[in-house]
């Protein structure tokens, strides 16, 4: 077990290094420098000497490998430098400013889709071939075929434009729950799909297991069989999808945040890419990757602990 954890941890570090190198060089392959957009968009052209000075200030005149090395050294101390666009503000500051919105939306989505996804999955698995099963399958088919941005636009049209029940967009924090409804609902399509399918197939598998038949045969009450024998065993694999799902939810969805004008990290990253704000793009890519990889790492370990049949030791 210990050996497995060490190996996996080494792999995690390797992945993060590789992703940082990949993003760093990909970003610098983008045609145009960060100050080109500035000179082109503003009416007063910035003199070339000033652009040179700026490039020296941010270290852009150095060779790429040196730039990468400097970035990496600073990043290990938690310093991602200054934003190229929002002048005078550090990347860490900006991420701290925008991330809470994404965490907020993400956690609400997680809570909502867990309830809906688990409920639909459980009900479908307990009534195979009857209407709850078809209903659950129908909902998950809907979640699979309708892209979240299409669903978001349709919801906006129906509930905000036509019925005028909910605000079209915006975010007022914890105080105004009516702003939450549409973003959370549209954001839930993917998670509901995953959770419904996983839960349904996990429970259907366990219900056919011999120990469930044994439990029934020895006269155990239906409630006890369901709770102790079926749910406990079936929901373990479901918990393992929840980890990476949480990670990707709390980093924010570009589509949802753009459509509903939520100033979260997903929206800000998208904006930063078009502004060529290198330090910010790098930091948020690494943040997303790190969160997802770490949750996979933790999930693997939890899984190995929960399920003694998983023999990780044999793996290389």
């Amino acid at each position, binding site marked *: 077990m210990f050996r497995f954890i060490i190996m996996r941890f080494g792999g995690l570090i390797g992945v993060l290094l590789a992703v940082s190198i990949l993003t760093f060089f990909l970003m610098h392959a983008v045609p145009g420098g960060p100050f080109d957009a500035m000179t082109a968009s503003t009416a007063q052209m910035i003199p070339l000497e000033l652009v040179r000075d700026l490039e020296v200030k941010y270290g852009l005149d150095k060779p790429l490998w040196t730039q990468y090395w400097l970035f990496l050294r600073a990043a290990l101390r938690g310093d991602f430098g200054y934003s190229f666009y929002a002048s005078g503000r550090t990347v860490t500051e900006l991420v701290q400013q925008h991330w809470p919105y994404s965490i907020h939306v993400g956690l609400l989505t997680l809570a909502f889709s867990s309830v809906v996804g688990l409920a639909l999955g459980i009900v479908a698995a307990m009534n195979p071939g009857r209407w709850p099963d078809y209903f659950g399958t129908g909902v998950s088919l809907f979640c699979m075929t309708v892209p979240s*941005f299409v669903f978001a636009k349709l919801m906006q049209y129906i509930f905000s434009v036509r019925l005028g029940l909910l605000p079209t967009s915006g975010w007022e924090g914890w105080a105004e729950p009516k702003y939450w409804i549409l973003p959370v609902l549209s954001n839930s399509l993917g998670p509901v799909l995953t959770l419904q399918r996983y839960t349904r197939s996990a429970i259907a598998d366990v219900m056919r297991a011999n120990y469930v038949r044994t439990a029934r045969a020895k006269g155990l009450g239906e409630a006890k069989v369901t709770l102790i024998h079926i749910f406990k065993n079936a929901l373990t694999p479901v918990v393992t999808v929840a980890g990476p799902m949480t990670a990707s939810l709390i980093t924010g969805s*570009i589509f949802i945040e753009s459509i509903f004008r939520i100033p979260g990290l997903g929206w800000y990253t998208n904006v930063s890419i078009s502004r060529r704000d290198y330090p910010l793009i790098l930091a948020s890519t690494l943040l997303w990757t790190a969160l997802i990889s770490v949750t996979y790492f933790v999930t693997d370990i939890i899984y190995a602990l929960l399920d003694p049949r998983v023999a990780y030791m044999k793996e290389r």
Partner: protein
Amino acid sequence: MTTTETTAIAAPFKHRSVGQAFWFRFRHNRRAMIALGFIILEILAAVFAPVVAPYPPDKIHYEALWSLPTKDHWMGTDDLGRDVLSRIIYGGRVSISVGVLAQTMQVLIGLPIGAIAGLLGGWIDYAFMRLIDILSSVPSLLLYLLMMLVLPRGFGSIIIALSVTGWIGIARLVRGQVLSLKATDYVRAARGMGANTRHIIVAHLLRNTLSPVMVSVTLGIPGAMMAEAGLSFLGIGISPPMSSWGQMIGLYQAYIQTSWHLTVFPALVLSVTMLAWFTLGDGLRDAFDPSIQV
């Protein structure tokens, strides 16, 4: 030829080859057949767009700007007075071909990599698996966004961007299949009877990998179409004057209050198309699965 005829007459039990059994099961899946019919119609409409579309996609109707659906324009017109139905039909060319071409690229990259990793094993397998680990830990949408900035805007770039990580799924699938097939009794029996490696690869490993790959491709095409729609929706995919469904949704999303038809019709077409492809994929999976009885 003659043997099948004689058995058909003589034996009350019809013998079906694997292919015939597949076709029999597939044909009796009504949902999959409807989906297939819809997809064929849509492809025909896209191919024969100049004949099918009521107007040329760029024809400007000055008398009907921002027109809601009418008898002349079934799905209305946009800000320039262009017929929405015609633009959707022409947009189908882009959406469908992006889906099909991106998926083809992904198979061309993923199939050999998965097969090689699974067959050879050892350090080659290890290297490919770590590469897959790295690529799959970056959120794919973020990678698409970065790629679209690096590459020149256009049709080809979208396919390249979608293929950079898209091959991973197929590579994993093929590798897993090859690894498990390698251990089956019939492959060991073939080897024991002296079949050479090439015969085993072609006749046993690749042929048995074909059906899961076909299912994965059928499900991958709508995936790629959805990714293209997403990128075009964000404004970094297909650029005007070309149109795609995702682009139409994104372009006119601000006008949803007054001109809902500009967003709602492409959204409906996109969703129904997704539904058809996914249903077809499910139908294929069921038809390939001999344990499911019709």
